[in-house]
């Protein structure tokens, strides 16, 4: 990452917003397997870098404050709220978005299961839900416990309670949770 403060006029005490506006950086990271390099305003969130600069608009902005989960993406194998991290913090990282998971004519099993079981309605939270759903199954497989996990030394079973707890950072106002559950369970069983 390279940072260039092109305007040095800002004196101490000058408006910090004005000063920050002069600061831009070049960031390199991998998005959906492809190395990308973008020159951005340092204040740009990972979410806006994806949506506005890379035009990967499948990742959604529902609240911009880490409250809704619509912006969930995978960074270095872990799910994050992309509105809560700056793009400049992701230099060298590997990022996966909904567009990297599957395409309309080549859906990933989780995407296909959401379609089959109507695990959505308006669709706006859906990319985040699907990123989270896949990550939840990975987290359980990796033995990462949740609030509802009982025996921390035993292998974690995939249960409805575990899925519900771990999916609760992704709000769906249309209320499709029960259908998402059916879809996630189906994928967890490896069923077609």
């Amino acid at each position, binding site marked *: 990452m390279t940072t260039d403060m092109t305007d040095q006029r800002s004196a101490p005490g000058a408006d910090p917003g004005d000063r920050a506006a002069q600061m831009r950086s070049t960031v390199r990271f991998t998005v959906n397997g492809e190395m990308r390099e973008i020159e951005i305003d340092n204040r740009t969130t990972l979410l806006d870098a994806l949506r506005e600069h890379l035009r990967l608009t499948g990742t959604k902005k529902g609240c911009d404050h880490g409250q809704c989960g619509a912006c969930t993406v995978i960074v270095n194998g872990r799910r994050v709220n992309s509105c809560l991290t700056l793009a400049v913090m992701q230099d060298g990282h590997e990022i996966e978005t909904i567009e990297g998971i599957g395409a309309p004519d080549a859906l990933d099993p989780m995407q296909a299961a959401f379609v089959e079981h109507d695990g959505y309605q308006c669709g706006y939270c859906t990319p985040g839900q699907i990123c989270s759903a896949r990550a939840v199954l990975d987290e359980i497989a990796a033995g990462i416990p949740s609030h509802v996990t009982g025996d921390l030394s035993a292998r974690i079973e995939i249960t409805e309670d575990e899925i519900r707890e771990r999916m609760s950072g992704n709000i769906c*106002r249309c209320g499709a*949770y029960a259908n998402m559950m059916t879809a996630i369970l189906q994928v967890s069983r490896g069923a077609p």
Partner: protein
Amino acid sequence: MDFNEPAGTNPADRGTVLGKSTPRIDGPLKTSGHAPYAYERHDVAEDQLAGYPVFSAIARGRITRIDSAAAEAAPGVVAVIRSTDMDVLGKHGMNVVPHFGGDEIRHYHQAVALVVAESFEAARAASGLVRVAYDAEGHADYDLSTHRDTAMARKAEPDQDVGDFAAAFAEAPVTLDETYTTPCQTHAMMEPHASIAQWDEEGRLTVWSSTQMVNWLVEGLCSAFDLDPDQVRVDSPFIGGGFGSKLFMRADSVLAALGARATGRPVKVALPRPAIANNTTHRARTIQRIRIGADRDGRITAIAHDGLSHTQPGGDGENSTAQTPFFYAGANRLITPRLVDLHLPEAHAMRAPGEASGLMALEIAMDEMAEKLGMDPVEFRILNDTQVDPGQPDRPFSDRNFVTCLRQGADRFGWADRNTTPGGRREGMWLIGHGMAGAYRGALTMNSGALVRLRPDGTAVVETDMTDIGTGSYTIIAQTAAEMLGLGVDQVEVRLGDSRYPVSSGSGGQFGAPSSTAGVYAACVKLREEIARRLGNVDAGSLDFADGRVTASGRSTSLAEIAADGEITAEDKVAFGEFQDDVLMATFAAHFVELAVHAGTGETRVRRMLAVCDAGRILNPLSARSQVIGGMVMGLGAALMEELAIDTGRGFFANHDLAGYEVPVHADIASQEVVFLDTLDPASTPLKAKGVGELGLCGIAAAVANAHYNATGLRIRDYPLTLDKVLEELPAI
């Protein structure tokens, strides 16, 4: 097509595609992130600028000065538009409060300026540099509860005044007189209000937006910018939820258009999440007094519902009495909606406006009344069912199967095995309760148009300005055309949400599905007539459409052959006739809930929910079920957690984001079951269908509240049922 009498048998009755569970045809786009929502339309206009609004920090008063010099000098800023630079802009007739212009502040977080910049970051930062000075109005009123005894009626006459309520109530051997309150709620759809606007050299405006009613947004923009409808185009193919919040023009489109006009470039504006609750509309708070009198056998003899809510001057508030004139029998009735002008933000429609709040109260009252009578609440409702308008007995319901909903629901749920002693069933630390409620929501219809194209390859295209706000419009419209033309769903392309297409019903009031599919049906009938003409003026009614072919008098021709010389188009609209006023059209449901309340903490966990619904033909059971379970989820929120907290000193909703305003999350939702009765309502539409988008929300909160009472023995009449309201009185651990 004029729909002037109940539908007879028609091609839509075949049920080869309609009525079959069909995965959404837009599903692959939505699940892969390729469905384009309003703020994301990078492709539609080059060199877009970002706009970030500045919102009022007072609820009532005047702007004395807006100093935008620092913002204008900030890096990347292209323009700052100030409300005080212009007169009040026109609004849509359905809006109560203007969106921008002038110096008057009518509510908190009213938009007062817009910063337009080369980037979102630059616009947001500079918005913080705009300094606004106000002269706040000292006399402002934000508290509905102070008006309980003095508020005026909404209209000069009560909505229903039948028989002699006062005398009948006084004589009734069993009576109930209780007051219930519901709080302000916010829609909290996942996609914020957002628009991209662009003006062309001829002064025509295009707005890519997120709206439930495309034509109303066109009308609103015409009013705001003094344009003719042919100078405005609105495009809204995907909407990230609305629930009423996106029915009418909102500040995002007005601000984007202003920004675009000032800069000569396309401008996009999304309302920041923390501004939405106060800048846009909300469901009004209600205070409802319900009185019911019955004879000892449980027959209701007197019913009164006094529903108080609030509005900005000129608005309607929340008419919580909406269902009470019609839902239950009773010879003596007095229904009196009342309305108070408050200076809170604009109260307006939220999903099932009226019934959602009204049934939260009425269906607790029915539960309380059943208990007073020593009756099963299911049987009490069955006894007081009515097949006619109770205030106008010569006006029947078009089709009402509420009793079947109740009986089937009780059987499926295992109601006979419920806990019958409030506070009497316990599993370890958990108190177990069962509750039920009835649901009623009117079945509105709205005129709706569509255009159908039969392409030379034998496939079809449907175009209508109908919207899909998550309701499944794309799919049921494809199913309708497929049924009418003998095609597969995958042979129908559906294009929605563009004002260049025929005006439709739009999405609201659960009228969208029945109305818009009726419009598509009408266009398809016209196309079938054109095909009959081309087959040698055969009788269109005798045509059989199947497998991409049409058969007339034993002769089979492929649709591709018929359209081989060029696309055939047919446009029509359905116009619903006055005969519908002679009947009551409505949808019904019975909700059943089992929940557990923690004896130590008061925490409530809903364990299972069942809804049995009566809504005519269910066009797509898969997506209709989703509508109902989604409504139930929202109703669970209404029962247990949702409340916009009012700062009654400064006049704003304090918890105005998704952290402070809690909605149900996945962990709140356990088992949900939905049953649709196999019914048809020929009076409703040619497809004999009614909507379900709001039905699932109606009544469910009361079912939760009744189950909560059954678990704890504590009757709470003040929503939501948060644990602070029961903690002191829970039984000893």
